[in-house]
């Protein structure tokens, strides 16, 4: 190998290493932080910190979806300048204007187990759950109908259908 061949090789390897360095430098941590903060405009409860390309998110969000969504926004905004995201966001649902949904049990297996216990003291009545709806049949004295309805409602079904019941 003579000198004429070595020089271009050296130049080439220099270019490669120079290229690698320039690619690695990219945005400074401060610039990356600004860029991400811009992308997160409107999310005032979220803090962004960048150190050596690692983005740390802290603060609170109102839902799990928002948490995941923000992480994706950060990844998109940071693109290749971002090494990784440390997501320390806490989900803190708003208090006051949301109430827990009403629990309705639509699992027939669970309902049927409950029904068995509930109607044990109504020997003239049978009941079965289908798609969360309890349908009772048989005969029952009028005075006991309310009690039957109470024990069946206690199981939180979608509906209690007593229309198949003969009331004496």
């Amino acid at each position, binding site marked *: 190998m003579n000198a004429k061949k070595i020089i271009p090789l050296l130049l080439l390897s220099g270019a490669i290493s120079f290229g690698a360095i320039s690619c690695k430098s990219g945005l400074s941590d401060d610039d990356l932080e600004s860029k991400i903060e811009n992308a997160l405009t409107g999310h005032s409860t979220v803090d962004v910190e960048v150190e050596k390309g690692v983005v740390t998110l802290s603060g609170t969000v109102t839902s799990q979806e928002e948490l995941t969504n923000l992480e994706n926004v950060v990844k998109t905004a940071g693109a290749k300048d971002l090494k990784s995201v440390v997501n320390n966001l806490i989900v803190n649902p708003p208090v006051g204007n949301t*109430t*827990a949904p*009403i*629990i*309705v049990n639509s699992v027939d297996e669970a309902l049927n187990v*409950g029904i*068995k*216990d*509930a109607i*044990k*003291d109504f020997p003239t009545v049978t009941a079965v759950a289908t798609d969360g709806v309890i349908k009772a049949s048989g005969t029952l004295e*009028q005075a*006991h*109908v*309310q*009690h039957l*309805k*109470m*024990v069946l*409602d*206690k*199981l*939180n*079904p*979608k*509906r*209690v*259908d*007593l*229309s198949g019941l003969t*009331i004496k």
Partner: protein
Amino acid sequence: MAVLEKYKVLLDTAQSSGVQNLQFAEQDGVLQIRGTAPSADVKNKLWEVYGQIDPNFLTGDVVMNVDVSTEVAGSDVKVVTESSNLNIRKGPGTDQPIVGKAAKGEVIKLISKANDQWWLVRTKDNEEGYCYAQYLESV
């Protein structure tokens, strides 16, 4: 919103008689009602109002599950069976062996609630076991 309109008196009664954590919503055409009544009397009153609007509960457009706040661990509860004795069982379920009985009208101690349906109780004779909650009422 038809069922909300139909059962307005029931919901108004629940609100005015101090039912806590009152929740109601129409779901699949059925008015679902949940809450905690301050006493067994209030709970019974609600059922009376419901029965006046829908005689014999035949329409099936309401599911009402209302607890009573005084029915807490350590309180006394009365057996309110239709006529028979109330079985006290080893565990929470009718498949469990019977370990004792409480007479209709007997007052027993509520020790804890295994779930909405089965409560752990103790009689004056120190019989301990699980009873079906629907047959117990606070005194």
